[in-house]
């Protein structure tokens, strides 16, 4: 009898192994592995995080009151709030009243208006790097958010704050709603639960945080309380700083999505039938800043116009970026309300030379050209981009002497209004045209207009009016005037709007990344 036992055991072992293999297969199909450089992750607390990498993690773990529909960022749609009304206060301010729908936190507790109040007040009390969005941009204080009943929450905004801007801003992770009861249980040393939230989540989004192994991976698992279970049950963000490492790992199938392909590698991926090369939007702008203060090299707008005509945007995008950018010449990029995609300055060397002559600079001029180390938007080395700009400007008699520094040092100089010509990038702090209009056009905002010493009454007036206008049509009209005015008079020569290259394996369906960096993991599925 004993002799027959062995084959049985072998068979059973084989069956178990194949069963295990089947499980492994379906586990693979339900797991999405994303390789990227996540080294900017320092916190997973939605009320504090203000870096790029946490955006998709937090947007998938915490519901906000409102959200953008997928990659369309021109209007908001319901998230935790099913509807909202905008009203006004006697002193000229406004209110937004949100009506919550039924939702459950991953902890099992229902989402209530009190949780919203606590989450928003907490942001202001912690006063982290993103809190200025609430306190400065929205003029909110502790007490501005009130629970009218369990399912109704009211936000009171002071005079001069535009509720449309606040709605757009609430789509950002700062508006994440957390389970107040849960987080309060994990407060240590008065930290509002910040420490605990780095290794746990307490939101009502489709996923919850399983673990964050610093320097190694962030793991999200599906929230068992979420009403509509997604096809991907586990999302793993693996730290992979090197683009070569990402390329090797996606070719072998060890990762499904790669975030940091170089333009060259992206070009190759476009030819590879096993991969999908996706160009995703950004709100970033790569630009030249020209010091326009009295006595500065670019004080005369004709010289600034000459630079704008002399920069060959087309060849920068095609040759240097390998197509990973789109032309732009105004201060509001494509994708945002009020975007202006007009070409005000077609490449025209003769016209540029004429403008230099009109400005009395036909003998040429020499400026210091400050550029950062590393890669600029679209993955092109900043040094290469600067060399191209340098050769374009040389054609109209401007000698740009390149000085390359770390970006931290560059911004130190730039902030002191001490840069003559600078190569830099800008992204709005929140996805609303005012996120660009005010810093780039209003000198008093002490941001880009200020750094380039461009103190212009029209720019300031238009930006301020558009910021407070609550009539969408009027706002759009004001931004049309402003973008045209700054394009033709401002201190910038825009170079391009980078697109963000993402590569997935051909098996991944439904991957889309918004210009804000958000990715809806529930929309993704993986073929076997």
């Amino acid at each position, binding site marked *: 009898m004993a002799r027959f036992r062995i084959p049985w055991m072998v068979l059973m072992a084989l069956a178990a192994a194949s069963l295990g293999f089947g499980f*492994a297969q379906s*586990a*693979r199909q339900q*797991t999405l*592995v994303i*390789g990227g450089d996540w*080294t900017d992750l*320092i*916190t997973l607390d939605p009320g504090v995080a203000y870096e790029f990498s946490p955006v998709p993690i937090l947007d998938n773990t915490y519901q906000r009151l409102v959200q953008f529909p997928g990659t369309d960022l021109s209007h908001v749609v319901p998230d935790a709030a099913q509807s909202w009304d905008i009203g006004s206060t006697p002193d000229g301010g406004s209110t937004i009243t949100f009506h919550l729908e039924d939702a459950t936190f991953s902890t099992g507790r229902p989402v209530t208006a009190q949780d919203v109040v606590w989450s928003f007040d907490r942001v202001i009390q912690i006063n982290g*790097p993103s809190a*200025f969005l609430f306190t400065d941009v929205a003029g909110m204080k502790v007490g501005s958010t009130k629970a009218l009943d369990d399912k109704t929450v009211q936000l009171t905004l002071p005079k001069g704050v535009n509720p449309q801007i606040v709605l757009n801003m609430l789509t950002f992770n700062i508006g994440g709603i957390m389970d107040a009861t849960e987080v309060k249980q994990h407060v240590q040393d008065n930290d509002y639960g910040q420490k605990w939230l780095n290794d746990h989540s307490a939101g009502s989004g489709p996923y919850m945080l399983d*673990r964050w*192994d*610093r*320097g*190694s*991976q962030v793991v999200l698992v599906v929230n068992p309380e979420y009403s509509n279970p997604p096809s991907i049950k586990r999302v*793993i963000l*693996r*730290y*992979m*700083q*090197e683009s*070569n*490492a990402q*390329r*090797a*790992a996606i*070719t*072998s199938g*060890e*990762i499904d999505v790669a975030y940091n392909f170089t333009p060259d590698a992206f070009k190759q991926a476009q030819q590879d039938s096993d991969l999908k090369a996706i160009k995703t939007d950004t709100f970033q702008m790569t630009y030249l800043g020209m010091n326009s203060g009295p006595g500065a090299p670019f004080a005369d707008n004709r010289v600034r116009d000459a630079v704008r005509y002399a920069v060959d945007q087309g060849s920068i995008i095609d040759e240097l970026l390998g197509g990973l950018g789109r032309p732009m010449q105004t201060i509001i990029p494509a994708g945002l309300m009020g975007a202006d995609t007009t070409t005000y300055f077609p490449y025209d060397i003769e016209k540029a030379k004429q403008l230099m002559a009109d400005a009395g600079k036909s003998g040429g001029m020499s400026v210091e050209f400050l550029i950062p180390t590393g890669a600029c938007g679209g993955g092109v080395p900043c040094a290469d981009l600067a060399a191209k700009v340098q050769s374009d400007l040389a054609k109209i008699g401007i000698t740009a002497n390149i000085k390359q*520094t*770390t*970006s*931290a*040092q560059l*911004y*130190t100089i730039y*902030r002191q209004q001490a840069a003559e010509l600078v190569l*830099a*990038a*800008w*992204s709005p*702090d929140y996805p609303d045209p005012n996120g660009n209009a005010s*810093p780039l056009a209003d000198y008093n*905002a*002490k*941001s880009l207009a200020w750094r380039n010493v461009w103190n212009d009454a029209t720019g300031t007036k238009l930006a301020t009016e558009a910021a407070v206008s609550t009539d969408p049509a009027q706002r759009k009209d004001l931004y049309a005037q402003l973008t045209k005015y700054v394009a033709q008079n401002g201190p910038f020569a825009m170079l391009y709007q980078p697109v963000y290259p993402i590569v997935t394996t051909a098996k991944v369906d439904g991957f889309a990344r918004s210009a804000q960096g958000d990715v809806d993991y529930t929309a993704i599925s993986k073929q076997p």
Partner: protein
Amino acid sequence: MLAFLLRRLGYLIFVVWGVGFAAFFISHVVPTDPAAAALGSNARPAQIEAYRQKHGLDLPAYQQYVRYMVDLFKGDLGNSLRTQRPILSDLRDFFPATLELTLGAMLFAVLFGVPTGVIAALYQDRPMDLVVRSLALMGGATPVYWLAILALELFHSRLGWLPGPGELSPYLFEPHRVTGMMVVDAAIAGDWAAFGSAVRHLVLPAVVLGAFSTALLARMVRSAMLEVLSQDYVRTARAKGVSGRVVVFKHALRNAALPVLTVMGSLLGSLLTGAVLTETIFSWPGIGSYATSSAIGLDFPAVMGVTLVAGLAYSLINLLVDVLYAVFDPRITYA
């Protein structure tokens, strides 16, 4: 011996102080602003000022130094500007992975470097010796960066023999953290699937990191062996009829071990601190990766923490080598 140890440990304080002072000095002459780096390009002047005040960056350099040293003597390396966490807990998180990688690389270097060096010495100037010497030259001259990318492309992407970047397959669950070294923790947990995956993940980065050390070790062993093999006592042993194996391993190798030991000590130190590139390419969550992102983010307290720990590790390893000297060579005593 005890007096020697105490004296050396006493010196250690000065070494660490020196390293700390140098790191502090360098980080403060660099003409850049950590606040600007931490807050990004959009930050307004008021935000930057507040940040500098909060972290004491607005104080004169000597005051910052005194503050730092006082904390250091209390065993507090300060908080990272970037992660906002105590640097000690950051290092606790990242150091074990580096230690694991370094030990893997050292193991590879010893397993391959020592025998090849012995073989090369025994077959001096014959084809075998030539092969070993050429390989050693190549190993010593190949940049780690290039070797890492090449190895990843060939053995992972093309041939599929070994897994890619990271410590563990993403489809496996990490074992409970005990030592922080994935291979050890998987073994402790008895999770053999994770253990296998962790070992396989360790192979490529360890070999890449260890390549230079292997080459250097092979050359050192070869020349030390050649010197010893020509000594009178080896000839005598051979004349007495002692078997070839005993002559090589007992008489020659043990005596050749002394110079090799010195090299191994400094190699271990340089592996610990030199893993920056390897860790970055292989996405290894060690202090090399931590140091890179800290340096890019101008996180000076973190960079100084890594520097201090590296200096300490280097000194301790050197001390260990000196102690081992006495073990290997009875003529050496310390007082």
